[in-house]
């Protein structure tokens, strides 16, 4: 009971923490801000910090080493390297800012207008952007310099124009995605002027990406500017790091340190800007993760190696080998930042026999999918088995005491003896390959049959799952078929290698109501015909009543009730089951948490 409260509390604090604080907490971000702040301070107070003027020459002391007067030595004109570095910060940073300012002042309004009103302005602006992006930047800058003289400022204004498409595209995309959202509509209906809507609603959306983009642009501007100056195309009367670099390269044989300092300054400045951009992005993403996203599955990477010495699989308890699946006292947890494991499944036990259909019912976050995936061995890599065991057909896939699913044992079973029907049909097919090839490949691999034979079987399977024109579907890409059809394809895939157990994870939730019934009929028919065991994960008692022999009810990671479907439906014992059943009887799908308990994993 105390655990979810903690989560809520921490969520709340995290949401309140400003992005800035989060950046400071990130060591990289802190470093970047520290370096940039120092550089900016140095630039502002250059006149006070630098012991000499940027062009003050001590003609009697050229290319001198470091001493107490010239902290970093002098250059070929006897100018103080340290002072020039300090004044260089001023020019270099200011010119980078100028470049970003020009780019923003062109790209941002253009992007706002193009994104908000679209129409002819949008097409015109896009065309200009295409031209700008195809321009060979450095050559244009060289030409501009030849035309208008070696001014740092003119070069940077020109570069700002060249780089403005970045801001334009960023703003335009952001605005387009926001434009039709509800709150903007609402604002429009309530009579707010376009400019108010733009400034109030849309501006807040593009603010963060623009900060990131600006950090990157400033870095690029410094590199480009230094590059041009290195070519000897800089303004010789102004101390910048690029001019110093050029001067250093000329004297690289006599005084290599002249090259070192400006190179270091450029590297530090550009690096800090990159780091700052990364830190801002990370900070924003963190906030989104905590406050917005509830669906936070870590990637299901199953590549990791079995840890520790390979143990012989322990034998299962005598008498239980007759069960197709037996889950005993299973607990699954995820490591937390503080080093503890947060359980999402706790002390769950059930069995499935051959030819039997078991329903696992519960709301989002009840741990039902985690349980199902643990049988498939497809938990995220960071998931840990805290306790309990899983056995399949008389052998442990998770033996007592093991903390992860044994991949070598499960890879023998997956696809061959245990198969899977996912929830969302479209996202579970690889868009890059035809449906046929996605059906054929597992059969070739698992059944060891030829491609031609696999194709024959696939066509038969497609017709078995009720697809009218199997040949056409076979050659189609996933985006060319409907959702219901795709789910039939996935079911065909699931039965293609004659499994003993099918795990169906909400197989109808994503489908239209009319299609739902057809798909359920199909699963029932196949189950009867093939005599396979099925674990059906669902939140819907209707589906359970329709298909299952037995059912277990899960809530907040625990099993609250289990038994014959008729019994549970008829005389539910647990209050939670009763609530669930009530909601079903009122013909409603529980959209929200019914009880204030629940984890974050689904």
């Amino acid at each position, binding site marked *: 009971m105390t655990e979810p409260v903690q989560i809520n509390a921490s969520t709340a604090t995290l949401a309140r923490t400003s992005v800035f604080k989060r950046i400071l907490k990130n060591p990289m971000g802190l470093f970047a801000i520290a370096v940039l702040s120092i550089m900016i301070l140095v630039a502002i107070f250059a006149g006070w910090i630098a012991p000499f003027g940027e062009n003050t020459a001590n003609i009697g002391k050229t290319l001198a080493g470091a001493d107490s007067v010239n902290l970093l030595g002098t250059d070929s004109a006897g100018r103080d390297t340290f002072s020039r570095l300090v004044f260089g910060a001023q020019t270099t940073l200011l010119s980078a800012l100028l470049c970003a300012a020009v780019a923003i002042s062109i790209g941002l309004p253009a992007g706002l207008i193009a994104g908000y009103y679209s129409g002819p302005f949008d097409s015109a602006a896009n065309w200009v952007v*295409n*031209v700008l992006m*195809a*321009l*060979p930047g*450095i*050559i*244009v800058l*060289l*030409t*501009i310099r*030849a*035309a208008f003289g070696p001014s740092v400022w003119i070069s940077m204004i020109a570069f700002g124009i060249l780089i403005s498409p970045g801001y334009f595209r960023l703003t335009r995309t952001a605005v387009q995605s926001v434009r039709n959202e509800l709150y903007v509509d609402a604002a429009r209906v309530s009579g707010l002027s376009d400019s108010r809507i733009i400034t109030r609603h849309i501006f807040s959306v593009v603010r963060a990406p623009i900060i990131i983009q600006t950090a990157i642009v400033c*870095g690029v501007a410094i*590199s480009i500017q*230094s*590059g041009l100056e*290195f*070519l000897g*195309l800089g303004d010789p009367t102004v101390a910048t790091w690029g001019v110093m*670099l050029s001067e250093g*390269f000329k004297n690289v044989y006599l005084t*290599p340190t002249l090259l070192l300092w400006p*190179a270091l300054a*450029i*590297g530090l400045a*550009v*690096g800090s800007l*990159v780091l700052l951009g*990364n830190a801002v992005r990370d900070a924003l993403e963190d906030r989104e993760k905590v406050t917005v996203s509830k669906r936070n599955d870590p*990637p*299901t*990477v*199953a*590549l990791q190696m079995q840890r520790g010495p390979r143990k012989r699989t322990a034998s299962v308890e005598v008498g239980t080998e007759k069960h197709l699946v037996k889950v005993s006292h299973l607990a699954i947890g995820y490591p937390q930042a503080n080093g503890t494991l947060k359980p999402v499944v706790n002390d769950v036990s059930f069995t499935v026999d051959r030819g039997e259909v078991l329903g696992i019912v519960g709301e989002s976050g009840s741990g039902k999918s985690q349980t199902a995936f643990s049988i*498939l061995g*497809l938990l995220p890599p960071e998931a840990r088995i805290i306790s309990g065991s899983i056995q399949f057909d008389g052998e442990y896939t998770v033996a007592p005491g093991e903390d992860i699913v044994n991949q070598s044992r499960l*890879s023998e079973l*997956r*696809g*061959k003896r245990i198969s*899977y029907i*996912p929830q*969302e049909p479209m*996202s*579970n*097919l*690889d*868009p*890059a*390959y035809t449906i046929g090839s996605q059906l054929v*490949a*597992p059969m070739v*691999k*698992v059944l060891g049959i030829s491609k031609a034979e696999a194709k024959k079987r696939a066509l038969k399977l497609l017709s078995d799952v009720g697809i009218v024109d199997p040949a056409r579907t076979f050659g189609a*890409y996933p*985006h060319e078929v409907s959702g219901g059809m795709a789910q039939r394809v996935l079911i065909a*895939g699931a039965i293609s*290698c004659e499994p003993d157990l099918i*795990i169906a994870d909400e197989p109808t939730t994503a489908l239209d109501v009319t299609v739902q019934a057809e798909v359920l009929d199909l699963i029932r028919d196949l189950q009867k015909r093939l005599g396979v065991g099925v674990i059906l994960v669902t939140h819907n008692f209707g589906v359970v009543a329709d298909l299952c022999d037995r059912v277990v009810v899960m809530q907040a990671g625990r099993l609250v009730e289990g038994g014959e479907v008729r019994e549970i439906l008829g005389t539910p014992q647990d209050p939670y089951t009763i609530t669930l059943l009530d909601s079903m009887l009122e013909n409603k799908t529980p959209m929200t948490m019914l009880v204030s308990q629940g984890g974050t994993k689904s």
Partner: protein
Amino acid sequence: MVTFILKRIGSGLVVLAAISCLTFFLLYFSSTNIARNILGEYATPEQVAAKQAELGLDQPIFSRFLAWVAEALTGNFGTSWFTNESVVQAISNRLPVTLALVVTSIVIIAILSTLIGVAAAVKRGWIDRAVQIAAVIGDAIPNFVLAIVFVTIFAIQLGFFPATSSIQPGADGGAWVASLTLPVIALVISGLTSGAQQVRSAVIKQLEKDYVRTLRSRGISEGVILFKHVLRSAAPAGLTVLSLQFIGMLGGVVIIEQIFALPGMGALAVQSTTLGDTPLVMGVVLYTVIIVILVNLLVDLANGWLNPKVRVS
């Protein structure tokens, strides 16, 4: 498919026209001293005037542009004002060097960043952290700074490589390799880190996709999932990054070629723009833009091949 390509070529031509127009008028501002600069310091004002007439510089800008366009449309890009070499000849002499430099770098970047990016995405752990840190460092150090450091250490101090180019027509493979090694390394290092970073995040994004789990549940091996399915879907992101790097490098080599005294397009660009050699600058700009447009077209075609959804629409 054909209409798509034709459409793209059509719009490319329009962009090309716009850019030539823009560049030509920009060059106008730097063309005031051309005749004097060609003739040198001891030329008399009469000589300068004669030269201006010879080059057509006494004509108004518009008729100059039209004359250039008329010639260019017949495939005649003129001769350089300063070297009298035909523009096509000058560029075809230089282009192989730049392309060798850029293409070699891009190929190495593509291969290495795929390997490293995939490894970082799959293995995570230290290699992942190393890639992330390297990406920041790679971004932080402009490639020309790296190049300077390389020349100073490996060519000048240690003498492992030639400090300036030994690439010339008829130069043997060894000379090319020796001359290109350091510049390619400099370009690869700064491109590789961000390339690997992009591949890494694209692969991670794909690994999080539902279909990967389904493929696993079908008993497909991890290797097949990774290299047949995940990489293919991650490839468009990688290709886009590579094409951006390619375009960026076409500009970036200007400085790199200068450092290594490589006789490539970059050196030509610097020479011709500083002198205001209009025919040559126009040639360089046109070639570069054509390459950029072609690369973008190729990337779009490749993406269409990789992603059937894009192919249809």
